[in-house]
Structure formats: structure tokens, C-alpha cells
């Protein structure tokens, strides 16, 4: 039987690349039974948790923006205004009252 070019090409493809494809297959598809209902339930929960991820990202973004505003207003390394308010010690207050 004469081997034509297509056969040669397919043979080369088979020998060189089939194992590579097999490897990709191994990487993508597990050999275990992924189930049906449990897999679907996992996907539904994953969609919900993905939504929570965006909520978490949004919260992080809002906190970042607020922190940025404070940084712009009070400069780098400054404490926020609430923390920087100093309450006078009680004895100083007492002295002021007697005056």
C-alpha cells in the first residue's frame, strides 16, 4: 500500500502531537466522574460567590476612594481628623475651671 502525503502528515501529527493533546486533555478534564446534580449545584453556588467577590471588590474600592480623599485632604502620613483630636488631660481641665 502506497503511503500518500496525507498519511505521512497524519502520522507525524499522531506521533508528535497526540501525546501533547492527550496531556492537555488530562489537564482540562479530570478522569473522575464529576457528577451531575452536585456539579450543577457547585456552579450555582459559584455564581453566587462570584457576585460576593464583586461586592467585596466594590467595598474595597469604596474604602480605597475614601482613604484617597483623606490622603488628599490631610496629606500623606496624616492621621484622620477624628483620631487627631486631642482630649485634654483631666487635671488641665480642672485647672482651667478654677481659673
Amino acid at each position, binding site marked *: 500500500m502506497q503511503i500518500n502525503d496525507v498519511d505521512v502528515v497524519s502520522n507525524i501529527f499522531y506521533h508528535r502531537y497526540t501525546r501533547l493533546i492527550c496531556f492537555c486533555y488530562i489537564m482540562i478534564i479530570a478522569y473522575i466522574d464529576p457528577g451531575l446534580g452536585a*456539579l450543577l449545584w457547585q*456552579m450555582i453556588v459559584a455564581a453566587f460567590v462570584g457576585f460576593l467577590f464583586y461586592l467585596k471588590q466594590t467595598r474595597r474600592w469604596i474604602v480605597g476612594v475614601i482613604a484617597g480623599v483623606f490622603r488628599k485632604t490631610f496629606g500623606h502620613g496624616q492621621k484622620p481628623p477624628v483620631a487627631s483630636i486631642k482630649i485634654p488631660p483631666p487635671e488641665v481641665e480642672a485647672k482651667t475651671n478654677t481659673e
Partner: protein
Amino acid sequence: MSAPAPSFRDPAGCCCSFHGRVLRFVAAEAVSEFEKFLQTNGARQFMARKKFVSTRRLDENETAALRAAPELQPVFNAQPGGAAFEHERIPFPSYPHEWPPEMLWAAGRLTLELAQAALADGFGLKDATPRNVLFRGSEPVFIDALSFERRNPGDPIWKPHAQFVRTFLLPLLANRRWGLPLTEIFTTRRDGIEPEEVYRFCGPLEKFKPRLLSLVSLPTWLSRKTGPDNQKIYQPHLLANTEKARFILESLFQRLDRTLDSLQPVAQKKSVWSDYMATHSYDDPAFAAKEKFVNEALREFQPARVLDAGANTGHFSALAAQAGAAVVAIDLDAACTGAIWRRAREQKLNILPLVVNLAQPSPALGWRNSECPSFLDRAAGAFDGVLMLALIHHLLVTDRIPLEEILRLAYDVTNSLLVIEFVDPKDDMFRRLTRGREALHVSLNAAVFEQACAPYFEIVRSLALPGTQRRMYCLKRKGGGN
């Protein structure tokens, strides 16, 4: 020469036992990633903690020597251009159908810990079955080193999730809620129990209880709604945001962790035999004499490996372990073996407790009955000492095993020592077990017992336990070891 029986399900390689060595053959394409996984922080830490089987790549000379072995030709032919690795050998392999629920729970915990550690290193666990775990004493060891592959960073789905549910969570749930023995689940089902199967056990309101709803009812309803021909579900669903994919997986593992915690077996579970140590018929001097006798035999023979058959809650297993032996403690009662496991873990004793009925030991299971050897195949010649304490009357009366058969079995299992307690038919417990069949054992006495021992064992010493109808025997196997 033992013919290797290689594992065959994983296309990335196989594992087999050969002349006492545990060899793994990895396909050429998977070698590089496998070695990279072994170098990850997670794998190294778990290996250092002895929670992950130690693995080394065989050099060219060692591989060439193996290649010359004709028995390994099929394995090398199946993995051309692959590499050979050697694992440490875990003594006395055991399987999920022999574990008490406590051990299945511990194996599940280790599986999740490893899956989480691998995720942090960019790898994924591609199968989650208790068959990936063996026990070294009471401690689980993950043995299927090839179960890890580099994960696609955009994949938010853990494919083995359903397998983890089938093989860990649902068996634990069925055992806890309905008392379904793990032995029955795993002897007949290699891959655990399906949600649909558990669903049939649930009452109408039970189906809506939170744990059952997520593990059983919702998966069952979803699978009914979806046609079995819908292949789109199984296509990879990759996300562009890899951080999100990882967040989803981390969240999944945390949920599985919490579910596993909620299914942790209860410590104070009672059974017919779990109170035996508190309610047995010996008075204190008799029990002290028995304890002294066993201790002396252990000190004299110093067995490295001991089988305690009919171990109950493991009092004498603990004595053997404290004397330096690696002990396999078997009992048919899962509550008793669970108690042994807890004690061994707390006191760091080298005891492997297994749910095995000596009258009906675990059969060989799996494809061609060669994937999990039977208990007796594993036990033959595997022990230097056997303890058969307060057991013989159960075998003689309840299971109707002839005395000579019991002694032949002990002869097959031990290489040297047998400590056995002879229970006379006049003993209270013996009479209770006979239930009106006393005539069957009327000719049995200590002299007959000694005569039956003669072909297999020589009597080193014996002792009548004071105030009882029982006699302890320290026997030495005739004709050397197996």
C-alpha cells in the same frame, strides 16, 4: 515472585508494588509538572509532617534495572519515555471499607488540607477519594502523589467536588444519621454513595434540613431537571478574572471544611461491645493476672508487628504498642475501633484500628479482585505476634468455626508468638453465647485445646486466671516464620 498489579485509572501514570517496593510510573508529559508539584511549599511541608508519602525519582541505573524485569514490561510499555519514582512503603495498607467513621473523617480532613495547600501553590487536586489515603498507625498519609496537576487559574470549578461528597460527606452523613455501616457502603460501592441514593432514605421534611438540602436534595432535584445528554455542563467554564476564580474555590473549600466538621463522628457513641471493659466478667485479680501474662509474653518475644484480633476498646493493643510494637487492632464493632483510634491519637500510640470481623474478613475488592487485597492476604505472615484474647468462644459458638481452623488461621498470620485465651464451656459468657446448644461443646476442655495446638504451636507457658473458667496460653509457632 509477586506479579505487580498496577493502578490504571489515572492516564498520567500508574503505581504498583514490586518486591516490597512501591513504584510509580509517570507518563512523559506529566513528569515535569509532577516534579514541580513535589517541590512546592505545600508538598514539602506535608512531606516533612509525614502527611504526604515521601517520593523520590529513580536515577537512570535504577530505572534500567527495573526495565530489565519482565514483570514490569507492560508498565514501561504503557508509559514510554516516562519516569519511575519510588514511594515509601506504608505498613499494612487498609481501605475505607475497613475504617471506622473517625478514620474516614480524618482522611477527608487531610484531603481538604492538601487541596487548599495545593491551591495556594497553583495546583489542583484532581481526585478526592479516600483511596488516596492510607494510615500509618492512626495517622492518615496521602499516598496518591500524582493526584495533583497544575490548575487553570481561570477555572472556578473543582471537578472532584462531587466525588468528595460521594466518598466522604455522604457516607459520614448516612452513617451518622441512619447508622449505615461504612463497611457496607464501601464494600459494594467503589466510588461512594450518590445523592440520589441518600435522597431515598430521607423523610419528606428531612429533605429540607440545611445539610441534607445542599448535599442531597438540591443535587438530586437539579439532576432530575437536567437531561443526562446535556454535555455543555461538563465544558470548562473559565473566568477572565483569575482572582475571582480563586476566591470561589477558596470559598468552596471553606464550606466543605465546615460541612466536614459538622459530620465529625460522635465520641460517646455506645454499642453492644463498647462498654465491655467496664462490664466484663473478670474480677480485678483475674484481670491483673491476664494483663501481667500478656505483658510478660510481649517482653519475652518483643514482636515488632502485632495483630490484636477482637481488640474491643484496645486495652491490650495499647499494651503492645507501649511495648514498642506496631499494632493492627481489629474488631467487628465500629464504635470500638473508633474508640481505639481516638485513644491511639491522643496517646500517640502506633495502633491501626480496623473494622474487621475475623469470621468474615474483608474480601478482595476492585477490578479482578486485585485492587484491594483481602484482609487475610495482607495479614498472612505480616505479624510477629497475634493476640486472641476473649475471642475464641465467639468464633467457636457464634460463628461455628472449628477449633483447629482457628489455630490454623493464627498459624498463617503469626511468624512467632500467639497469646490466646482459652474459654471453657463452663464460663458464663460461653454459656450465654451457646443459647441452649451446650451439647455441641461438651467435649471441649483445656486438654483438648492443648492437643489441638500441638501441630502448630508449642506451649511456652499457661496460666489459669483466678476465679474464672479461663486459661491464658503463650504459644510459639512451630517451624519458624512464614
